[in-house]
């Protein structure tokens, strides 16, 4: 299973030195859903309610996949948080007729909400099924409108949305660093899920920096990526669980 993280060719071509990546340590994940809650709060994600969720219209940008292992009474629950994999060769990008989703110089699959016309081609092309569609006008019951994040668009009905690696936090950290003349240290930028994860199962950083925490973890013998044989080149790297699990 040994995998060596290589700097992506695309970022070398565009001249930027960064490739944002996330590492999910499945040995540490307890399936507590704190990341899901943090993500909802940070990114102004609406709650669709039980009935619409039953139709599969939930809006979570992270889903905690649950797997049962073994036969009763020797059952083990396994959890796997799945968010947008920010693919290097993203199947969602070429299908968008209006270029609302595209590849940013830092390797993010950007989704520009005010350009989206809601064809849902991208959502259908995504092999990870992590793009969500606003079937209705999002409603935030009181007092939730008071805590909407002013750095993130409040999306409207009829458009696709998805995990952005909290690009508003990346940009804010970069602006603050430029204003103070400091350089960003590894781990200083934290998406909401990474910041909130109680057992620190999530790590975020630059894959093009060989000394960053995510690069070191990506070199672990436990590392793998989801649906690797599709050749999408995800930037979310999972560390196989089960070795230290009891």
């Amino acid at each position: 299973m040994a995998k060596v993280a290589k700097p992506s060719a695309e970022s070398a071509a565009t001249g930027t030195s960064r490739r944002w990546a996330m590492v999910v340590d499945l040995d540490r994940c307890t399936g507590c859903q704190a990341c899901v809650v943090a993500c909802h709060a940070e990114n102004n994600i609406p709650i669709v309610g039980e009935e619409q969720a039953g139709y599969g219209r939930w809006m979570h940008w992270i889903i905690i996949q649950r797997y049962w292992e073994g036969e009763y009474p020797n059952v083990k629950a396994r959890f796997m948080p799945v968010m947008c994999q920010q693919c290097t060769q993203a199947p969602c990008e070429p299908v968008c007729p209006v270029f609302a989703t595209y590849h940013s110089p830092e390797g993010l699959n950007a989704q520009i909400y005010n350009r989206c016309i809601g064809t849902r081609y991208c959502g259908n092309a995504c092999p990870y099924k992590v793009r969500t569609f606003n079937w209705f006008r999002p409603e935030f019951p009181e007092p939730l409108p008071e805590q909407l994040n002013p750095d993130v668009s409040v999306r409207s009905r009829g458009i696709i949305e998805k995990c952005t690696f909290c690009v508003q936090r990346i940009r804010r950290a970069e602006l603050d660093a430029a204003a103070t003349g400091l350089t960003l240290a590894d781990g200083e930028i934290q998406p909401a899920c990474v910041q909130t994860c109680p057992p620190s199962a999530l790590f975020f950083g630059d894959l093009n920096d060989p000394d960053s925490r995510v690069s070191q973890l990506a070199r672990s013998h436990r590392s793998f990526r989801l649906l690797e044989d599709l050749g999408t080149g995800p930037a979310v790297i999972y560390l196989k669980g089960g070795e230290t699990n009891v």
Partner: protein
Amino acid sequence: MSGAGRRRASIRLMLPLALAGGAVLVVAAILLSQRTAESAPAQPIAFSHRTHAEAEIQCLFCHPNALRSDVAGMPSVERCAGCHRTIATTRRRIQTVLGYWERGEPIPWQPINKMADFVFFSHQPHLAAGVGCETCHGDVGKMNAARQVVNMDMGWCLNCHLKQPETAVARLTDCLACHK
């Protein structure tokens, strides 16, 4: 007259009409767009930027947040009262300001430059890059009632972002620079 001939005659009549209609629409659109760019909203007090600029007060004295934050912000009543408790206190407009100060109420100033809510603009990096206030806001120091001088649309933003040094253009024209 044959059917084809009648059709040709009606086209000959309709064409100038359609062209004239189109021209009227274009002129109306241009006039309307200029009107939105130049109209000044009604303010609770007839504040004159010119008077203050002629007294050599810097923009950043009243709008200091432009230096360090996303929004330039409106000055607090305290900032107004700081000077006007002693300066020109007999004027009617100043007494209105002092009325707000004594009642402890904010002055309901109307914003002049409005950005769409899907645009995430920050004053701080623009000032840090040496862009002067007047580049986007016009010569406010010569206006009595401040008004919007440019339609702040994406083409206008990109006009400037595309002229930046080559190393910065990719970052500055990335959608994620302004849309999140």
